């Protein structure tokens, strides 16, 4: 049965940047749907298949040449007649393992031994690769069908040509690890031997392509280490910060600490006279934090000389109407607004009625701060403007957006922009915004040399596009029997300063559906906006990362008030096992939710008593199409130091594509979530961010790392991404456990605000 309140809009802005949402593939106008494919011989012979994927679930075969041979470096699959198999990795690698697991999908269906595959990072080419981005945990769901088809189509063609050569039927032929095998007499032909002949075959009908059953998988689901590991551990130049081009100069770009203020004057002559400095100039920019803010560029012969020169730069900044913006001011204002009616609200049932007839009413005010991404590799970008063309080496999660950005900013034709993909030292959503690329290109546009723009850590922290903070005034009602009858949230969030009408900033949206408590009959979800100048952007599980903490903490508060076991109480709020909207996999499937919660309780010994002085906390959240229930067990010392003794994670993402890479994402999400809980906050004072480096924006270190146990529930659902969904439940699991251990309810993040340390 469909319940409109809980699914009324599958919260497009909460989980996913809207341009990443599957059904709203708006970045590209997919190329005309050419349903043909031509074979192009690989240089030196062989078979190459190039597919283009639009937003559909099927590959769009694409003509890569006139068929008269030639090399196609961007094809997903290249099989040389020497037997070498090369598979293209299409999406940016930020540490989510995509450079390994997407090629694994192709290799599985192609039926080659993983050890025989060479993975190559592809070019950026929307015509051939469709959407190339790293965000919203979308690489898996978007590419699952097309990449399987890419592999299976190639395999079908290899089988067809072998059958022809043997004069047997295709049904008589099997494949295994790069060979076609004649099941009658056991003879074998390698893919390499078949490659040249296969290249001349017509494309088989898509409908005739048979995909493997899961039970036949030999690569997917296995523990496969990352393809770049060797290069990483030997210190190869993989990252943006490592790029070196002939004659390259180094640049810093200095912006006003108060976001967006203009350059009035600067001591440019003095700066230009400093050692190693080549030039210095100011840029006006277009005033957008996602593009080019006003600032001063300093070009030098080395990174260090650029950094040193920056210290000598004195800028007189223009005035800003936002020089009073402060986190303290927002907090005071939010506390006041929370008591007033919300600017917008959605209702289900009759919350006021529930309140009138309640036997108990619980109220709680939750606060979470702004956060920085703090990517380990500070922002940077290398650009070279040569003969009217801009070539860019960008550590970006969103490479296909750069050309349009530059065409607006610098009036360069989109077709004259070439973006090279690099391995990226951490994404977490920061690099979905391409401000660093706009800066590097605007500087490169002015000189005739390649430029590497390097951000200092301080610049990185002071000029992020932050995870937005927020405030929730929660009210819950119970009846005599301890049943949860009514729930109200007045969410105080932010709208970008001049947005009319107000609309939530990136990561600052939520709806009734975000609460994921569909069995509560009377619900009111209201929103009020505060105007904001500080830039905000996507983060890890933006929206969900903070919302889950509020809602799953409040569930625990209500369970305690009702005198009920948290586990039973949480399950009760999910109601019957069902899909809230049949067939819409972005809507909550309570059956999958219940299953992960039950297994988490079992694995964490939920029903067993816990030793004195310890606490245990449970939490659940569904985000990015993944279902996660998590339990934290911890000890709190007399000085309120929290030692997390154990974290149990249970996930359902359909199936795990790479056991190693997938579990890496879970481990990373847990650590990340504990980091945010422990002591991270970005505070704005007088319009500027106060934190500058890891001493005042701490990241979790080795000694605080808890043991993490991961369990999976495999379901028939097609696999979904893991970059984000393990994060959201963790924070409430920990704060609920702190309550269990101490009786102290934490309603302000980070917990250092409440006198706790981790």
């Amino acid at each position, binding site marked *: 049965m469909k319940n409109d309140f809980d699914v009324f809009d599958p919260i497009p802005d909460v989980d996913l940047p809207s341009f990443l949402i599957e059904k709203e593939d708006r970045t590209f106008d997919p190329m005309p749907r050419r349903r043909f494919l031509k074979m192009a011989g690989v240089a030196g012979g062989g078979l190459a298949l190039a597919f283009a994927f639009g937003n559909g679930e099927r590959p769009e075969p694409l003509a890569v040449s006139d068929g008269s041979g030639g090399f196609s470096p961007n094809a997903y699959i290249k099989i040389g007649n020497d037997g070498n198999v090369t598979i293209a990795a299409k999406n940016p690698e*930020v*540490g989510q*393992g995509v450079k390994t697991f997407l090629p694994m999908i192709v290799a599985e269906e192609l039926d080659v031994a993983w050890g025989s595959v060479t993975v190559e990072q592809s070019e950026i080419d929307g015509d051939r690769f469709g959407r190339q981005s790293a965000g919203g945990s979308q690489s898996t769901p978007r590419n699952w069908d097309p990449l399987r088809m890419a592999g299976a189509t190639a395999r079908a063609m290899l089988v067809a040509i072998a059958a022809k050569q043997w004069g047997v039927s295709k049904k008589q032929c099997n494949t295994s690890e790069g060979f076609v095998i004649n099941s009658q007499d056991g003879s074998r032909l390698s893919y390499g031997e078949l490659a040249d002949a296969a290249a001349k075959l017509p494309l088989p009908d898509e409908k005739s392509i048979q995909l493997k059953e899961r039970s036949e998988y030999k690569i997917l689901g296995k*523990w*496969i*280490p*990352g393809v*770049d*590991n*060797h290069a*990483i*551990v*030997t*210190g*190869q*130049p*993989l*990252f943006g*910060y*490592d790029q*070196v081009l002939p004659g390259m100069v*180094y640049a810093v770009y200095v912006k006003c600490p108060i976001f967006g203020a203009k350059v009035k004057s600067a001591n440019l002559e003095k700066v230009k006279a400093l*050692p190693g400095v080549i030039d210095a100039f100011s840029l006006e920019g277009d005033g957008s934090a996602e593009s080019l803010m006003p600032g001063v560029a300093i070009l030098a012969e*080395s*990174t*260090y000389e650029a*950094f040193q020169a920056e210290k000598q730069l004195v800028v007189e900044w223009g005035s800003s109407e936002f020089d009073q913006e402060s986190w303290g001011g927002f907090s005071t204002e939010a506390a006041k607004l929370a008591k007033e009616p919300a600017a917008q609200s959605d209702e289900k049932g009759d919350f006021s009625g529930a309140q009138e007839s309640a036997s108990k009413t619980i109220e709680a005010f939750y606060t979470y701060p702004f956060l920085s991404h703090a*990517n*380990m*590799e*500070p922002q940077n970008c290398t650009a070279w403007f040569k003969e009217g063309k801009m070539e860019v080496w960008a550590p970006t999660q969103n490479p296909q957006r750069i050309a349009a950005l530059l065409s607006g900013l610098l009036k360069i034709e989109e077709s004259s922009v070439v973006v090279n993909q690099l*391995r*990226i*030292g*951490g*994404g*977490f959503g920061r690099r979905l915004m391409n401000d660093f690329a706009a800066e590097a290109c605007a500087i490169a546009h002015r000189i005739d040399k390649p430029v590497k723009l390097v951000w200092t*850590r301080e610049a990185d922290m002071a000029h992020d596009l932050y995870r937005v903070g927020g405030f929730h005034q929660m009210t819950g009602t119970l009846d005599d029997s301890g049943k949860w009858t009514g729930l109200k949230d007045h969410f105080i969030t932010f709208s970008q300063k001049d947005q009319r009408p107000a609309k939530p900033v990136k990561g600052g949206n939520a709806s009734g559906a975000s609460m994921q408590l569909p069995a509560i009959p009377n619900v009111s979800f209201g929103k009020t906006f505060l105007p904001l100048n500080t830039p905000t952007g996507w983060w890890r599980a933006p929206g969900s990362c903070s919302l889950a903490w509020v809602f799953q903490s409040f569930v625990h508060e209500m369970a305690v008030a009702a005198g009920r076991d948290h586990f039973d109480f949480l399950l009760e709020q999910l109601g019957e096992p069902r899909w809230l909207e049949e067939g819409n996999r972005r809507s909550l499937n309570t059956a999958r939710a219940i299953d992960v919660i039950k297994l988490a309780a079992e694995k964490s010994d939920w029903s067993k008593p816990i030793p004195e002085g310890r606490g245990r906390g449970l939490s659940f959240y569904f985000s990015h199409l993944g279902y996660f229930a998590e339990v934290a067990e911890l000890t709190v010392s007399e000085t309120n130091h929290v030692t997390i003794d154990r974290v149990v994670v249970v996930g359902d993402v359909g199936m795990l594509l790479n056991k*190693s*890479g997938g579990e*890496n*994402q879970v*481990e*990373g*999400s*847990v*650590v*990340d979530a504990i*980091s945010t809980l422990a002591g991270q906050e970005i505070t704005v004072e007088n319009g500027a961010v106060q934190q500058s*480096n*890891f*001493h005042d924006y701490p*990241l*979790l*270190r*080795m*000694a605080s*790392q808890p*043991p*993490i146990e991961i369990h999976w529930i495999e379901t028939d659902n097609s696999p979904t991404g893991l970059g984000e969904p393990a994060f959201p439940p963790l924070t409430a699991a920990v704060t609920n456990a702190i309550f269990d251990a101490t009786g102290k309810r934490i309603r302000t993040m980070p917990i250092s605000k409440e006198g706790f340390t981790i």
Partner: protein
Amino acid sequence: MTRLSLQVNGENRFVENIDPSTPLLWVLRDHLGLVGTKYGCGKGLCGSCTVHVGGKAMRSCSLPVSSAADQEITTIEGLAKSNEELHPLQDAWIEQDVPQCGYCQAGQLMSAAALLKEKPKPNNTDIDAAMSGNICRCGTYQRIRKAIHSVAEKGGVA
């Protein structure tokens, strides 16, 4: 501005025209082309820039090049005996699939290598102490710990 001679990864390297207070990190990266050593904070807070100077793990972002001039410097590029024979920790890192983004891992490996040289069989407290200066934003600590233990169990780095 001076000319400096450095001992890097077993080779004699010269740097011309250098301000002797320049941190070793930037000399390695921009002058000697050894970009495996990473910049993360520039303040000795994150460990991304860890190298060995005179056999000890040091934060190269906070070490003036002049003070490293007479000592043997090893960077991540020189940690392995050869291309074919990696340092046991590098093998363990690959096997345990430690890296996520990978950016911090050069520093992590250099800290871990210095630890094992000093304490071939470290316990968890030793590991916490030796590795606490190295941040991993991606959260690979559980695997780093496992990888260090696995090398120690197999007989260390001798």
